[in-house]
């Protein structure tokens, strides 16, 4: 194969893709870095010049940044736990043969295809509204206290909405992964007297392990930058209760026009994402090698 590859020059075929992605990777990144060392506020053109590490200093001593990083971790962590557990659960359930299984599976995976602004507003208004929402109606009917979701448990509400969107993703991936499970191995284990849970723990779960790590890492990438769901429901509030890093940067950049500060926060977001990405790339590299 190696000699054959000289039959054809692949350069022209790759050039457009590589060129564009190189541009996309380098230019904005370089600019973010550059701005993060500048005094630059769009509302105040008189403030200019090199800022050194002032932006970073101000930012790192800003309690709001740390709150938003903590919120990001809480959001990402909770959604990961919820989606992976439900995903594995659904993968096992939908592996059984039952009446209307394919239709039921379609219904479970549907929320993944709903755009974030729609899911957030449907949950906020039709379901979680404290007076007219479906949940409040059910609470009253059951005689339970009515919960004002976005005021009393704002972060929990966001976690619920985002999990609803991402459980289908985990399910979709893990159901597919289940299909490559060696049935004979399961049957043999059953013959040997293995019971349901021990079969799940010793055969199914190890089989799903690699797919679970793929789910975790891909979700990490997307969940680190959850934005629309927060913008249309709580706008980061009440207070800072639901401000994650994305929303923090958005406020700095497009509400306060603080280019320097927002860029410094952007660099922090990129560093955070890169820690995850390093693990992700290693997994995919292993995967390419196996082929």
């Amino acid at each position, binding site marked *: *194969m*190696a000699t054959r*590859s000289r*039959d*054809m020059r*692949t350069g022209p*075929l*790759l050039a457009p*893709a590589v060129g*564009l*992605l190189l541009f*996309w*990777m380098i230019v*904005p990144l370089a*600019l*973010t870095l550059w*701005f993060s060392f500048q005094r630059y506020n769009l509302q105040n053109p008189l403030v200019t010049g090199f800022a050194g590490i002032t932006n970073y200093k101000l930012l790192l001593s800003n309690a709001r940044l740390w709150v938003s990083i903590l919120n990001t971790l809480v959001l990402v962590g909770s959604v990961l736990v919820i989606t992976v557990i439900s995903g594995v659960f659904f993968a096992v359930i939908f592996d*059984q*043969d*039952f009446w209307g*299984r394919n*239709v*039921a*599976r*379609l*219904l*479970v*995976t549907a*929320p993944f295809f*709903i*755009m974030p*602004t729609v899911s957030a*507003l*449907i949950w*906020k*208004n*039709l379901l979680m509204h404290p007076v*007219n929402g*479906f949940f409040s109606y059910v609470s009253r009917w059951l005689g339970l206290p009515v919960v004002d979701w976005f005021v009393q448990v704002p972060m929990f509400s966001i976690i619920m909405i985002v999990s609803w969107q991402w*459980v289908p993703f985990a399910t*979709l991936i893990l159901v*597919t992964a289940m299909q490559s499970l060696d049935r004979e191995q399961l049957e043999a284990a059953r013959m040997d007297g293995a019971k349901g849970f021990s079969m799940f723990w010793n055969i199914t779960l190890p089989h799903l392990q690699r797919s679970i790590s*793929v789910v975790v890492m*891909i979700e990490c*990438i997307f969940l680190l930058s959850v*934005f*629309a769901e927060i913008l249309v429901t709580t706008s980061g509030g009440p207070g800072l209760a639901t401000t994650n890093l994305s929303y923090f940067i*958005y406020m700095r*950049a497009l509400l306060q026009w603080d280019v320097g500060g*927002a860029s410094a926060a*952007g660099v922090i977001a*990129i560093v955070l*994402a*890169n820690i*995850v*990405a390093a693990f*992700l790339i290693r997994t*995919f*590299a292993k995967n*390419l090698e196996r082929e």
Partner: protein
Amino acid sequence: MTMRRSRTSLIAGIIGWVSAIAMFFPIFWMVVTSFKSEIDAVVPSILFKPTLQGYVEVNSRADYVSFALNSVVESIGSTLLALAIGLPAAYACAFYPGKRTKDLLLWMLSTKMMPAVGVLVPIYLLFRDAGLLDTRLGIVFLFTLSNLPIVIWMLYSFFKDVPTPILEAGRMDGARFWTQMRYILIPISMPGIASTALLSIILCWNEAFWSLNLTASRAGPLSAFIASFSSPEGLFWAKLSAASTLAVAPILVMGWVTQRQLVRGLTFGAVK
């Protein structure tokens, strides 16, 4: 044995269907509300006189149609562009692998890991200076770039499944790149290309970071239109539900149709 099987399947069936109904309920409720009048919409009841009022009002607002048109143009435009750039690249990686092909693919994947919010500021300023804010061209450009790695990886994973002898035969006959592409590769891997295109359309259609931050009324897609209901206008639940139903219906159908192949693209070929 069969007894136990059928009992497990009964239990699985009950759990499966209860979860399915619970997960789908918000969507079902949205569709139900879209057929209510505004007065009925704020009462959580399923006994009401169905009306198309919500749909009529959404459509009579001229801007709904223009937002929908933006969604169509932007997602299809950037999908075509990504395919045009991605097809040759995936072809080269799959059929003429060199020493560094693997690194190249991983590098492409790594560009996807940069959080959009990290480069929000420079992109906003570049767009402002280039006059690309709130233009379809700008959005098509961003959507293309952000989906290109996924498109290339997905096509690559489908091309890997094409038996090489078929292409070799074509090559023996002296077929050049475009001939091979047109008469051999594209027809054989059409299902793969189609599902790649669909995944790209789905991702563009639902994109809600760049579209919320860089567009307004001129180039705003449907996700931005729906976001405008978070203002006091959100009090009109029937209209919100009707607009939402229209916005998600085509994508939901596409998603359901291509589910199996989507997994490949969503996991960059890691799970098939």
